[in-house]
């Protein structure tokens, strides 16, 4: 829709003038304002008046540089969450949009759609809502934005009929995201769709009936590139990785070096490896010290044909990511360096680990405390002990530098370690 078209259709008598918003119709990027106006201008549609007042209120916000929504409580039958209620503080001026609630709806894992499905959603939202939909919110929900209290249930019922369910809001399990991964990415180290659905669908009760101390988010990325920002933005991040050696096609390496030149290859691949695990041989083949490689993905990203993850694949699990509120930003901390994700049992294990985390969170977190805050409050040793996880050097950048600690049980703790090691080696030998 060229913006002239839109302009053409806009601001007759009965419509709120929007001089400030109009300025957001210029320029090459698709304009949300133009979109809102088209909804406003669909005279035949139930939402046209609502969108006229919505534009009026938004223009009002742009004038005064203040927001005019307040929260409240709205939900659908059987659920305690999934709807973000919005009531206007300036309903007197803009009555038609006095209620402008959002339904958070969980997307198919990996955000795959058919045009047919999208059309069905549009039809439902034209019928009950404002006609305004976001693909997607930052937590991954399809956000059906702008619904009267009365229509929330209807809209949900229709969406639910075509197989869609509400997402999370409030102190609850939140909607999750998984990267495109297996569906279209050679870096993918586990089946993201399966992990995402296995875990979340197991704990839907925690999502639909908020009863946790605070929000809890899972996110699934198939490799260290972390295309869904899991480490920063999830309480429970599942990041694909591999245990064995990466695969190297030396012929492709040579082709790469031939194409870009030695100096370029050295400066951009060899010298950029964070652990100096790479060395370019004089014959332009690549030396990889796999024990030192930290699976950062850089060299694989650059030489997509020559290098790829090993065969013994699975995931690392990091706990405790969140944004700034209260304690400052926290990133997820490496808690499970490797979990195989292959068989039915493997995914069971992942699910059970998720359960133990949710239970620990429910039992130990203070009100409005994220699990990352709990971890900081009680300390990593107490945290993993409570979860029955053994200490692992991968959990830290380096061991303690502070001598302020009581170590009289050090020897006993060391014994435990050696016993575990013995068993592990025994198992390894058995395999």
């Amino acid at each position, binding site marked *: 829709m060229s913006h002239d078209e839109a302009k053409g259709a806009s601001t007759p008598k009965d419509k709120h003038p929007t001089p400030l918003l109009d300025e*957001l119709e210029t320029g090459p990027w698709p304009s949300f304002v133009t979109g809102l106006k088209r909804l406003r201008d669909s005279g035949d549609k139930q939402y046209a008046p609502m969108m006229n007042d919505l534009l009026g209120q938004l223009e009002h916000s742009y004038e005064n540089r203040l927001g005019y929504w307040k929260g409240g409580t709205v939900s659908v039958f059987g659920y305690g969450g999934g709807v973000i209620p919005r009531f206007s503080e300036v309903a007197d001026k803009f009555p038609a949009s006095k209620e402008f609630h959002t339904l958070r709806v969980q997307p198919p894992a990996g955000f795959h759609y058919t045009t047919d499905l999208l059309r069905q959603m549009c039809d439902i939202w034209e019928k009950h809502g404002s006609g305004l939909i*976001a693909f997607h919110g*930052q937590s991954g929900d399809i956000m059906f*934005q702008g619904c009267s209290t009365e229509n*929330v249930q209807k809209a949900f019922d229709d969406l639910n009929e075509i197989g869609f369910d509400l997402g999370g809001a409030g102190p609850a399990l939140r909607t999750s995201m998984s990267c495109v991964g297996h569906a279209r990415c050679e870096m993918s180290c586990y089946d993201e769709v399966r992990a995402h659905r296995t875990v979340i669908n197991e704990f839907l009760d925690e999502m639909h009936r908020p009863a946790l101390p605070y929000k809890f988010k899972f996110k699934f990325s198939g490799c260290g590139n*972390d295309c869904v920002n899991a480490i920063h933005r999830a309480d429970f991040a599942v990041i694909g990785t591999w245990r064995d050696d990466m695969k190297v096609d030396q012929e492709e390496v040579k082709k790469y070096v031939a194409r870009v030149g030695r100096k370029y290859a050295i400066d951009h691949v060899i010298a950029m490896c964070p652990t100096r695990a790479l060395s370019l041989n004089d014959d332009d083949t690549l030396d990889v010290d796999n024990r030192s490689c930290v699976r950062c993905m850089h060299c694989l990203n650059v030489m997509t044909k020559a290098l790829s993850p090993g065969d013994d694949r699975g995931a690392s699990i990091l706990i405790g990511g969140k944004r700034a509120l209260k304690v400052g930003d926290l990133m997820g901390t490496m808690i499970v360096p490797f979990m195989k994700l292959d068989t039915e049992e493997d995914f069971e294990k992942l699910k059970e680990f998720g359960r133990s985390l949710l239970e620990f969170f429910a039992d130990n977190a203070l009100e409005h405390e994220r699990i990352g805050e709990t971890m900081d409050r009680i300390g990593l040793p107490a945290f993993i002990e409570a979860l029955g996880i053994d200490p692992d050097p991968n959990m830290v950048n380096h061991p303690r530098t502070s001598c302020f600690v009581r170590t009289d049980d050090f020897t006993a703790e060391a014994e435990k370690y050696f016993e575990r090691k013995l068993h592990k080696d025994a198992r390894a030998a058995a395999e």
Partner: protein
Amino acid sequence: MNVAVQPRRPVETGVPDPFLYMHPVLKKNYGNWAWHDRLRPGVLHHVSKTGEEVWTVRAGTQRQMDVYTIRLLCDIGDRFAEGHVRFTTRSNIEFMLSSVDKVEPLIAALENNGFPVGGTGNSVSMISHTQGWLHCDIPGTDASGVVKSLMDMMHHEFTHEEMPNRVRITTSCCQINCGGQGDISINVQYTKPPKINHDLVSKVCERPAVVARCPVAAIRPAMVNGVPSLEVDEKKCVCCGACYPPCPPMQINGADSTKIAVWVGGKHSNARSKPTFHKLVVANLPNNAPRWPEVEAVVKKILYAYKEHGRDYERLGEWIERIGWPRFFELCDFAFTKHHLDTWTGARKTMNMSAHVRF
């Protein structure tokens, strides 16, 4: 509680099965891809271990879409792209093609309809944005407007791959920061303690909960002209805004308080360096709707300094780590002030405890 009346019980279907909607070539080669490259900006080419290929065309959207826009994208998808699409983490839309011939016609159709094609590889992708005035109950600014303004400015960088590495920008319309970390982050930064409407506090706020929310224990219960209310120790207050959501009468927003800060060097990927938080560059920019020109100017400086000086594969923060912060501030002609010295928990670890120095 305001529950609609129908008795229909929800079917708790949870996360929908994507295989019902996934492009057949993706489905067929699920978990079996071999390598990829890029034909041109906005076009990915993936090859599976069986040799099968798929081309993906990525286009930008406004995220907050009206049904007309969505249907228009569906029409294009049906006419040129086999009826399957996906959206990315950054609200871009992707069309999958089983043959390369359809790539150019598809791109033409998208561009003719005003959808920029790009966002791949070492380009500037869509800004991950938040709600703001359009829908949130605590916003300091609008998100859609900021994003639209900046994407207009960066249109060329979205449709071309001319950056050292991908640039992932985020914006947040209040200090809660739903937008997360970014190579460049444009976030509301409050500059004043909350202004308290003492008449309302006891009516609408759970006072102990509000006191507990403050990161620096600056809030204490108090009687103010006869009514129980809350007081803020302005010496302690770090203007974080955490008290506002649970207690709206503690108004954190206002022309003198709601400013915008720009941060750089946030990174999520583990490629090369570990993930990082973004760092403060400029604060106190005016919340200048509808087009935030001062913010645009700052972002532009950063973007083009990086474009000119960064090396291939260096993310923005990695580039700065190499050339050093002194040089970065110099190249962008930004001021380095006492506010750039961290004072929060663990600040000591952000200091330069070495003789590594740059001139």
